[in-house]
């Protein structure tokens, strides 16, 4: 089975994000970048499927500038077989991303596309769904368990939905987006890191794919979250009621 896994380079969730004074974006100096954590879970799932089935191939796909090589190497060190990097130095919205990915899917014809449910930078949570629409493929988002049928022709996915769990199934090819509890991604071994050096990262200029990537969205302004202010203690219930009325203006 061939599995395509999408990989986005995002700021390390552990770094403190600062918004530029003019609100046009975030300060990128001294930021460490990582594989989007949900994509890492998707890679792990693909590797587990590969290890279980044998004879499978895990192909990573990413879009961005050459710096993304760093994240692709990490994925290859974890055990993916090869990678595709669509070179593009323009900001892309989710529709453009899914159109580019659709082209890669056409070229590679994977049976399964595994993606993160969202990227932790812009939290759009759209690429998977849009890719399914562009390809007209079935999709299962927010997967917390993936069960491949014995004949490898279909899959059952457990989804975490509000108020419970839902199991859905579809015939392959299809798209699954990974939720947090799907698995715990592995760390790469030293031999894995060394093998990754020799694996192929194929670079594809975005122009070669002939897709319309004109932005349809514009970010007007970014604001940092409002700073939390500590609470205060009051002596009596009456005081509390007064403050709720006069200061917090909630009653």
């Amino acid at each position, binding site marked *: 089975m061939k599995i395509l896994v999408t990989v986005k380079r995002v700021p390390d969730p552990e770094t403190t994000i600062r918004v530029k004074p003019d609100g046009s974006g975030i300060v990128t100096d001294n930021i460490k970048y990582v594989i989007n954590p949900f994509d890492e879970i998707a890679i792990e799932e693909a590797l587990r499927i590969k290890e279980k089935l044998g004879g499978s191939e895990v192909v990573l796909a990413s879009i961005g500038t050459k710096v993304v090589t760093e994240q692709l190497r990490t994925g290859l060190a974890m055990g993916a077989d090869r990678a595709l990097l669509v070179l593009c130095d323009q900001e892309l919205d989710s529709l453009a991303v899914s159109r580019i990915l659709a082209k890669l899917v056409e070229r590679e014809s994977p049976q399964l596309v595994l993606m993160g449910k969202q990227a932790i930078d812009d939290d759009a949570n759209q690429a998977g769904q849009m890719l399914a629409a562009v390809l007209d493929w079935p999709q299962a988002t927010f997967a917390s368990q993936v069960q491949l049928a014995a004949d490898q022709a279909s899959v059952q996915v457990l989804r975490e939905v509000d108020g419970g769990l839902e199991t859905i199934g579809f015939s392959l090819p299809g798209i699954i987006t990974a939720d947090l509890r799907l698995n715990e991604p592995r760390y790469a071994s030293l031999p894995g890191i060394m093998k*990754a*050096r020799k694996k192929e990262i194929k670079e594809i200029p975005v122009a070669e794919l002939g897709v319309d990537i004109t932005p349809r969205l514009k970010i007007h302004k970014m604001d940092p979250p409002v700073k939390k202010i500590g609470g205060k203690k009051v002596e009596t219930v009456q005081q509390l009621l007064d403050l709720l009325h006069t200061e917090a203006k909630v009653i």
Partner: protein
Amino acid sequence: MDFQFSEEQEEIRKQVRALCSRYPDEYWRERDETGEFAWDFYQAVADAGYLGITIPQEYGGSGLGITEAALVMQTIAEGGGGTQACSSVHLGIFGLEPLIKYGTEAAKRKYLNKVLTGETHVSFAVTEPDAGTNTTQISTFATRKGDGYVISGRKVFITKARESKKMLLLTRTTPYDQVDKKTMGMSLFFADIDPEAVEIRELHKCGRKSVDTNMLFIDNLYVPKEDLIGEEGRGFYYIIDGINPERILVAAECIGMGKRAVEKAVQYAKERVVFGRPIGMNQGIQFPLAESYAKLETAELMVYKAAWLFDHGKPCGKEANIAKYMAAEVACEATDRAMQAHGGYGYIKDYDVERYWREARLFRIAPVSQEMVLNYVGEHVLGLPKSY
């Protein structure tokens, strides 16, 4: 000059960090309490291939250099495991060098693979009670008998003897008063720690509780000839060969511990509010931490310079010694300052910095004392007369 780590080296750092994040401070705090060896951590490091990092590829290792090994050790220390984590794997990561360099093909085929899978732990048995720093004065003796040797004597401070099946054992094969040169007449064995002939008595230490350090009473231990490493009488030189890399690794461990301590202190100083503001707003808290950080970064440069020289086959005695000296000093200072920044809580085990502080102290004493490093610098770098 190129100060950039390669992509692969950065990746190693990242992946070791990921591995260590599964063994948080609580894990090491518990080990420090119970003294139970960190088996699962040790096995995870072995499974991820790091025990073979400097072992040549033809014997199943990765054949990388001391630079990569130092990065691994620094990252492990930085992960919060300190010396408990580092010492649990230290010898696996570098200690087998004498065997790799001077052992027979058969011995290498027989043992290296078991070391890299983590199956065989190895101890390094050099120090003796009556010789101390003056290694040439050791008296543990190997007498030829039939097709091998019979060894008797006492060793002290032997780390991990409890877990180990094997030890690199330095003995005299010619008594001290019968050699022309005092560094001759010593031999190195890859000996079994046979419970019939070796009694292990654990010592109670200031820190690093889960990695045992022991007295060994060796009484008529039989070692077959095949387990002699290299030539009889030249063992001291085989040990000396590994001294610089060991200093580099230890220095890297110090840097890791120091950085971890500063990081913890910084975090705490941001959060702890006294007199209506975070204590980190006071320069009295800020400056010592900033200064320690500056010193750690500077010492780190010397660590990787020494590692680079070693990996490029150049002499690195000066750099390795200075790196060890500076790294141990700044690690002790940084852990002490981290404790100070924590106030009373710094003295409480739940805050972990006192554990780092106890552990870092070791490296001003072992594997070589600061005084002996300064002796080296005084004599061999500055050209002053030998003082001892």
